[in-house]
Structures are given as structure tokens and as C-alpha cells.
């Protein structure tokens, strides 16, 4: 058993206890009177220990409870208010004994100024155990080897500190400043590979671990004006990403991987540091008590000038190997302009109107330079690709009270997106897509106890002609797929919801959603996305038998399906001939995702001193992959289903030893059953001795029990 209640946890817990003692000293000796308990802010502290019975991968992935052992449990809320000045002091700590601890401090006289300081940790433990001989994990220098294999669980941790200050200036003005610094450290699953058929000497896959050591800083400063009619704020938002690792330098794993040859996969460039600076103004004006306009304009300048990775040993900046641009960094610059206008009005007591216009222009002004050489028949021109993107959206909605509580809602949305692209491409592109959606909805407050609505939404997406993909020398490439986010699409959606309170203590809620997508393929080839559908059924019930007994239950079923097809090695032409079409070797895939989830909960006050509660959640996800050979294809067999099943039972009991103190018992029993082939047969290998043989696995059944016992104390 591993002792997880480390010194840090206990130090923080001890600090929390000391702080609570300091702030409660004047009331600990005597119990607060009833009125004080009713009207004064309540402070509390909870201290205890918890135990996890066995190591687990998924239950504790983000909870910081991934290992078996004993953990410290500590929460604190110190809330003090000086009633004479309205000055608040709030100290809030959560999970102080765990790796996901949070601590927040707020201080200041309400309505005048406020200072806040937050600290938060977000851990992530990989759900997989990796058996590998890889050396240097956590650093930029890795050595691939098959010897000395051991189990590793990769993990990352974010530590975030935020400092905020705000000040009221007179009756209408205020200023606010916020600074956030987030450090992210750890390692994550990575790899390199070069694909060819089995037996080909170039078919290698190496497991790698990407070292994470980065800092995200964000600053926001704004000044605001607000009166009952007019509000305006303007400010600056800056952000900076700094990656303290620049590249992965790999040895071992095959000479061809690391040398100066055509398949060199070392060094591997890691994400470059970058920054952005935004200036913005937004505001709103009430023309009348029933008519308002709001707006926002923003300009962002984002840059990326991180130094390029160094050449591998022996590689020169020549036309065939190195960087031929003469640049040492990209000089990346993207300017983004946003303009938003919203309008809402109630011209008649029964009629509400709202509309909005939104325009966003991401203008990639990075210099376009040739970085690598290419051949006349190459399918790229060797330059960097800029990615500009512009979207213009308009929305309008009318909401009219027809009669007898019926409301009729009608809406229209229009969305135009423009994108740029390079002259030489391998993926199909159209400059513009345009989508129009309309909706009609009928809502009714049938009575004080029942409400319902039914909505129908229909949309159609079209666009400009697809551009022809060309090779560098101007000969056509392949032109058969309409990418899913660019393809013509018809979408229909229907949504029903009902709330019913048949008796005061019982409320029921039902939702049904059904949507269907139909895609048009290029030249009616039937390749790419074909259609999709999504269904959701959900039912909720809450029963409050008395102030001492309540139950809730819910169930959800969702079913998402899509159908798509592709082909082997389509001919490189602008338009396929009839003979070429009939010669296409086509296979299709029906992808199905089904989820069933239920939840049950009960809260029971057994006596003045004893509260108990329990809840149970169960969910099952099933993914199905139905492959079908359609023409000239063999071997398109459906893949096995992937299933995840989770059942979690939680129980708590709280016994009050006195009005402001007691003990709490928490029990969590979590069971997961995993049937997933993603990694089960995969071995990082090669046909040569350079294979590293790394495997990635997870336990098929994971059962975890957590028991916690803590004491709490409240004061006012």
C-alpha cells in the first residue's frame, strides 16, 4: 500500500486547520445563536482521511486517486464579513490533500474593490500502462531500445495561479485586472512511424514520449462604464505560450529513422512558443425599456517567431535536405478582427424580436516562403501554407404569444465561410460555404404544472465550386472527396421537450431529439461522408416526499450513426470518366455509437442529527464499425465492437455531534469493464532488430473502492 497522504497534503491541511482556528476563535467557545446562524456567512472546515483499495487507471485519472493508499481529505471555507464596512474575507480550499487541490482567496469591501488569488492543480494520469525500454522519458533526448523494459504510466499536471483585482471608480466606472500563469509539466504518449507493407524494411514504428514543460500566461485589463441605460467596456487581453522544449532528438530505433536519409524522423519539432494581443470594446445600449443593442469589436495580433529546430547532424541547408528559405523562424503573424452586433426588442407585449450579425476575419499574414524543394511532379510547392478564414453570420428570431399560453418562435440563420488555400494541394477545397437554417418552434405553458415545446430545424449548406487539386507541374491530382466540413449538406432536426409536475412533490421531464444529415458527394460518386443521424431520448424524475426525503432518477439513450465511403487510389484527373468511375474500388463504413446511461439518487434525513444520501450511475457506450465492400474490394470486414461500461455507487452519511460539528462517511465503489481492441494487439515493431517492442495496455476490468472518514466544523 502506498502512503499518498504526503507531507505537502498534510502541511496544507494543517494550515487550513490553523486558519480556521484563527478565524473561529471568538465563536468556538460558544455556539452561535439561531439568528446568527440564519443570517451570517457560514464558515466550515472538513478534515479526514480516505483510502483507495487498489490502483486504478480510469477512476482516478483526474481525481488524484489513482494509486492504492491513504489520502488526506481537507476542505475549508472561511467566509468573514465585516458588517460595518461590508469587507469580505473568503478563503476557500478544496481537495487540499489530493493532487487536484484548489485554494482561493478573496478580500475587499463589497462595492469598492476586490482582490482575488486562486491556485489550482489539474492532474491527468494516463489510462494506459506502457511497457517500454525507451530511455530518457521526460527529456528532449530519447533513446529507443528494446532492452530493460518496464511499466510506465505517463502523466501531466497543470498548476494554475490567478491574480485578480477590481476597483469601482465612482458610481458608474470600474476597472479590472486579471493575470493567470499556468505551468504544465509531464509527458504524453507520442510516437513516430513510417508506413509500408509488412516485410518492407521501411515499415517502422517507435514509441516515444513527448516531454511537456510549458507555460501559458494570460493578462486581461479592462475598464467599464455602466449606467441603467448604457454599458461600455474596453480592454486588453494578452496571452503567451512558452514551450521550454524545442525538439525531440532520438537515437536508436533504426538507422534510417535518425540519419540524414529521406526518412529521417529526428529531430522532431515540438510546438513553437507563440503569443497574441487583443484589444476589444464591447457595450450595450437600451434605446427603450424593451429595445436593446449590444456590440463587440476586437482586434487580435498573434505572432509566432520561435527559432526553427537545428538541422540533424550532417544535414546542410541544401535543396534536397535542409531549409532552403534562409529564414531562422517563420515570422508567423495572424490578425483577427471581430465585429458583433446584437439587437433585441419587444415591440408588442406579445412579440419579441432578436437578431445578431457577426463577422470574424482571421487574416494569416505570415510571409509565404519556399522552405523545402520539390519535384515537378510533387504534390506540394514547398512553401508554408497560410490559413485565412472569414465568417459572416446573421441570425433573426421572432417569438410571439399566440393565445392560451402558446408561443410561436420562428428563426432564420445564415452563415457564410470563406477560406484560402495553396495553389498546390492534395485535399479538396472550396473557397466558400454558405449555410441557411430556419427553425419553427411551438412552446406552451400548458398550466402552472406543465410546459412543453416542439421545434423543427432545417438547414442547407452549399458553396462555391470545388477547386481542382493540382500537382506542382500543373497536372491534376485526385478530385473525388468533398471534405465533411465543406460538403453540401441538408440537415433536419426535431426536438420535443416536456415538463410536468403532476403533484407538487413530483416533477417529470422528457426530451426527445432526432436529427438527420444528408451529404452530397462530388460528381455523385458516393465517396466521403454520405449521411448521419443522431437520436437522443431522456427522462428525468424528481420526487420530494418531504423535506426529509427526496429521490431523483434519470435515463438517457443516445444513438449516433454515420455512413461514409472511400476508394483505393483513385485516378488523378479533374473529372473521372465513366470507365474510371466503374473501375473505382469502393468500400463503405457505417459508424454507430450508442450510449445508455441511468442515474438514481436519494437523500434522506433520518433524524435531526443524521443525513444519508446515495446515488448510482451506470453508463454503457458501444461503438460499432460496420464495413462493407461495395465494388472491387475484398477484406472489408466489420471490426469488433468497442464497449465501455461504468457503474459507480456513492454513499454518504453525515452525523451531527452538535449543531455545528459532526462526522462524515463517504463511500465510492466504481467498476469499469472495458472491451477495446485499440491497443490490445499493437506492438511498436519493425521488421528489423531495431524494433522496440513497446506495448500499451489497460486492465479489462477495473474495480475501485474509496472510503473516506472526516470531521467537519462550522462557525459563523
Amino acid at each position, binding site marked *: 500500500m502506498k502512503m499518498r497522504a504526503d507531507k505537502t497534503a498534510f502541511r496544507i491541511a494543517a494550515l487550513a486547520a490553523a486558519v480556521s482556528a484563527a478565524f473561529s476563535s471568538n465563536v468556538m467557545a460558544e455556539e452561535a445563536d439561531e439568528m446568527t446562524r440564519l443570517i451570517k456567512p457560514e464558515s466550515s472546515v472538513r478534515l479526514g482521511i480516505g483510502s483507495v483499495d487498489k490502483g486504478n487507471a480510469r477512476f482516478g485519472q483526474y481525481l488524484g486517486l489513482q494509486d492504492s493508499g491513504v489520502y488526506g481529505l481537507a476542505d475549508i471555507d472561511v467566509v468573514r464579513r465585516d458588517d460595518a464596512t461590508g469587507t469580505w474575507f473568503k478563503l476557500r480550499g478544496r481537495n487540499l490533500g489530493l493532487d487536484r487541490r484548489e485554494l482561493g482567496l478573496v478580500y475587499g469591501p463589497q462595492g469598492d474593490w476586490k482582490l482575488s488569488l486562486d491556485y489550482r492543480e489539474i492532474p491527468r494520469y494516463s489510462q494506459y500502462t506502457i511497457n517500454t525500454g525507451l530511455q530518457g522519458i521526460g527529456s528532449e533526448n530519447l533513446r529507443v531500445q528494446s532492452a530493460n523494459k518496464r511499466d510506465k504510466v505517463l502523466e501531466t499536471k497543470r498548476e494554475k495561479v490567478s491574480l485578480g483585482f477590481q476597483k469601482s471608480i465612482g458610481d458608474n466606472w470600474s476597472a479590472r485586472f486579471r493575470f493567470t500563469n499556468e505551468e504544465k509539466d509531464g509527458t504524453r504518449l507520442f510516437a513516430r512511424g513510417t508506413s509500408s507493407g509488412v516485410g518492407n524494411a521501411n515499415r517502422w514504428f517507435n514509441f516515444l514520449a513527448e516531454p511537456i514543460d510549458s507555460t501559458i500566461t494570460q493578462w486581461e485589463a479592462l475598464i467599464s462604464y455602466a449606467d441603467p441605460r448604457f454599458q461600455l467596456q474596453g480592454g486588453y487581453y494578452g496571452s503567451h505560450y512558452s514551450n521550454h522544449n524545442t525538439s525531440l532528438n532520438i537515437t536508436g530505433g533504426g538507422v534510417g529513422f535518425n540519419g540524414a536519409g529521406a526518412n529521417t524522423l529526428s529531430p522532431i519539432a515540438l510546438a513553437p512558443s507563440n503569443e497574441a494581443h487583443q484589444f476589444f470594446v464591447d457595450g450595450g445600449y437600451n434605446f427603450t425599456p424593451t429595445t436593446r443593442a449590444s456590440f463587440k469589436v476586437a482586434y487580435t495580433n498573434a505572432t*509566432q517567431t520561435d527559432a526553427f529546430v537545428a538541422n540533424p547532424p550532417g544535414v546542410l541547408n541544401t535543396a534536397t535536405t535542409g531549409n532552403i528559405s534562409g529564414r531562422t523562424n517563420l515570422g508567423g503573424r495572424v490578425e483577427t478582427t471581430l465585429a458583433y452586433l446584437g439587437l433585441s426588442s419587444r415591440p408588442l407585449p406579445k412579440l419579441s424580436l432578436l437578431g445578431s450579425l457577426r463577422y470574424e476575419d482571421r487574416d494569416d499574414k505570415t510571409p509565404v516562403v519556399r522552405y523545402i524543394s520539390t519535384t515537378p511532379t510533387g504534390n506540394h510547392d514547398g512553401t508554408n501554407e497560410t*490559413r485565412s478564414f472569414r465568417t459572416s453570420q446573421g441570425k433573426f428570431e421572432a417569438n410571439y404569444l399566440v393565445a392560451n399560453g402558446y408561443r410561436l418562435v420562428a428563426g432564420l440563420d445564415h452563415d457564410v465561410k470563406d477560406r484560402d488555400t495553396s495553389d498546390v494541394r492534395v485535399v479538396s477545397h472550396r473557397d466558400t460555404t454558405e449555410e441557411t437554417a430556419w427553425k419553427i418552434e411551438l412552446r406552451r405553458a400548458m398550466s402552472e404544472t406543465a410546459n412543453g415545446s416542439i421545434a423543427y430545424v432545417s438547414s442547407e449548406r452549399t458553396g462555391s465550386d470545388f477547386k481542382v487539386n493540382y500537382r506542382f507541374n500543373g497536372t491534376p491530382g485526385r478530385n473525388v472527396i468533398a471534405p465533411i466540413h465543406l460538403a453540401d449538406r441538408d440537415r433536419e432536426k426535431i426536438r420535443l421537450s416536456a415538463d410536468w409536475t403532476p403533484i407538487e412533490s413530483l416533477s417529470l421531464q422528457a426530451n426527445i431529439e432526432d436529427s438527420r444529415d444528408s451529404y452530397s458527394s462530388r460528381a455523385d460518386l458516393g465517396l466521403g461522408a454520405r449521411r448521419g443521424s443522431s437520436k437522443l431520448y431522456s427522462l428525468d424524475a424528481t420526487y420530494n416526499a418531504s423535506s426529509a426525503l427526496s429521490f431523483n432518477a434519470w435515463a438517457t439513450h443516445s444513438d449516433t450513426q454515420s455512413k461514409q465511403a472511400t476508394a483505393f487510389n483513385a485516378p488523378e484527373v479533374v473529372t473521372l470518366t465513366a470507365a474510371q468511375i466503374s473501375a473505382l474500388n469502393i468500400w463503405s463504413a457505417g459508424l454507430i455509437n450508442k450510449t445508455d446511461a441511468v442515474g438514481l439518487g436519494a437523500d434522506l434525513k433520518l433524524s435531526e442529527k443524521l443525513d444519508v444520501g446515495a446515488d448510482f450511475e451506470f453508463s454503457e457506450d458501444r461503438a460499432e464499425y460496420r464495413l462493407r465492400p461495395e465494388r472491387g474490394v475484398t477484406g472489408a470486414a466489420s*471490426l469488433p465492437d468497442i464497449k465501455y461500461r461504468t457503474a459507480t455507487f456513492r454513499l454518504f452519511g453525515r452525523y451531527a455531534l452538535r449543531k455545528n460539528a459532526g462526522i462524515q462517511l463517504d463511500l465510492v465503489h466504481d467498476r469499469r469493464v472495458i472491451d477495446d481492441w485499440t491497443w490490445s494487439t499493437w506492438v511498436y515493431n519493425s521488421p528489423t532488430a531495431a524494433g522496440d517492442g513497446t506495448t500499451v495496455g489497460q486492465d479489462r476490468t477495473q474495480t475501485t473502492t474509496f472510503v473516506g472518514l472526516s470531521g467537519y466544523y462550522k462557525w459563523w
Partner: protein
Amino acid sequence: MRKKPSGIRKWMLAALAGAALLGGAQAWAATESGEASKRKDVVQVGDAVCTRCHDEGEAKPILSIGKTPHGTMADKKAGTCTSCHGASPTHINKPSDVTERPEPGINFGKSSSTPIAERNQACLNCHQGGARMHWQSGPHAAADMECASCHRIHSQEDPVRDRATQPEVCFSCHKEQRALVNRQSHHPIKEGTVICADCHNPHGSAGPKLMARDSVVQTCYTCHMEKRGPFIRTHQPVTEDCTICHNPHGSNIDNLLKSRPPFLCQQCHEPSTHQGNIASTTFPANTTNNNTLARGCLNCHTQIHGTNNPLNVGNERTFRR
């Protein structure tokens, strides 16, 4: 045998009983004579007229608002009972010609007869601006939601403002998201370390889907800034909208992918040398399994969001180094 009270204790008990009787009589007299204004405010400026009835023994107790910023009397802008509920003269002094006491001028909750826009305006009178600048043109306002649908004004703990409980409040309407966060690949939403408001501004936004920043990508960059680039080679959908490939609420495929490679990649990529290969889990005696098992296409194309490697020695053009 029970001891008799001593002389001093007897006098004290008598004095306490007398004080209680006197205090009770005075309170009764004050109420009956309509002199509520002479009562002492308890939690808000001018609340005596309300708290004379709405104490903890009444069906609608209100004293707990004293624990909140709205119950901070030193802040003259903190509001009063009537600044939210209206002057409500007939509720305070029931007219003699009606049998039931009329409701306050502005009422909240499911059974309220106050138009929703009026209910929300009671809050917006002070809270318009800032993060709520675009409330009226946002989808929650359009769906006839009131502030009190999500917020508890009278209690110290407002569940929607507590990171541990906020998702449950949102899930009371957003059922699909409730199911998705249970999937094996998810943001730690149920674990309480990432919450809905980290990505969405439910009070209205200049971005789509109530994004906290101005667009989907700018919102995702606040935590995933390494994806921002720009890069020498940038994967086009990465700059447009992360949700083309990812479902941020949950997926049963690692890394929140909407579909498993190669199917996800085949939705866009032309079938060239290997892109159209059939998905297969046969290992290792199959030439195409490396597009399906493990990370699928990403077994080789590891730098899928973009690469900043300028060298011409290893297919950085295809996001491999």
C-alpha cells in the same frame, strides 16, 4: 427531588418572563398597528417590512440572503427586497376587499405570473454589462430562461457558481452533454476540475455556442495554446474549428475524437497512395492495420495539428516531424 429555585434565580426567571411577554406584546402591537417601519432591519436595508412575516417559520423564509452579497448592508448598491421584488404595496398591506394576499410585484420561479423579461430586468438593473453585456441577444434569453432558473439568490451557496456542482445545474437541461461526459475520453467535468463556464459564457457571448472567448478556437487556446501556431504546415480544420474533429464534451475514442482514424481522416482526404486503405484490426499480418490500431493514421502523422519543422528530410509536410 427537584430543587426549588433560589431567590435570585426566581427573580431572574420572573424578569425574563416579563421581558418576553412585554416584547411579544410590543411586536404584536407593532404589527397590528402597521408600524413595521419601526422594526429593525435584519439583513437588508428596509427589509423589516418583509422579515416581519418572512422569517424562518414562514413558508418562504428569506433570512438566509443575509449570508450573501445581496445581504451586505454596508454596500449601498447591494439591493433590497423591493429592488428585486418591486414595491408590492398590496402584498405588504393586504387590501381589505381581497381574501388572498396578492403576490409581490415581481415574482420568480416556475409558478410566477411575472413576465420573464421583467423578472430578468430586476437582475439586469444592476448586473447588466460585463459578462452579461449580450444577455438579451443570447440563446438562453431566447429560450425564455430566467436568471433564477440557474441561480439561487437567497442562499450562501449558489450551486451554479460552485465548480463542484455547476455541471449538474447545466445538465438539468443539457441531457446530451450529461451522457457525453460519462464517456471514457472526456474533459474532467464530472471530476470538477474543468467546468462548463471555463468554455462557455451562459450569459451571452459574441462567439458561437456561447463561447467564453470570441470563437471556438480562441476558447480552446486558453488551455491548449500549443495548437495556436501558426506553423509552417497547419492542418486546415485546426485553424477553423476544433469541433470538426473533436467532441469537447466526451467521446469513447481517445483524445475526444469524433470518429476513429482512419474513418475520421477519410472524411476529408483524397484516396491516394494509402489514404483509402481498408480499416483492419488484424495484426501484424495485414498491410493496413497501422491505420486502425493504436493511434491509427496518427501512428505516423503525429504532428496532426501542425509542424514548424522547416527541413526537407523527413516528410514534415505530412505532419510527421
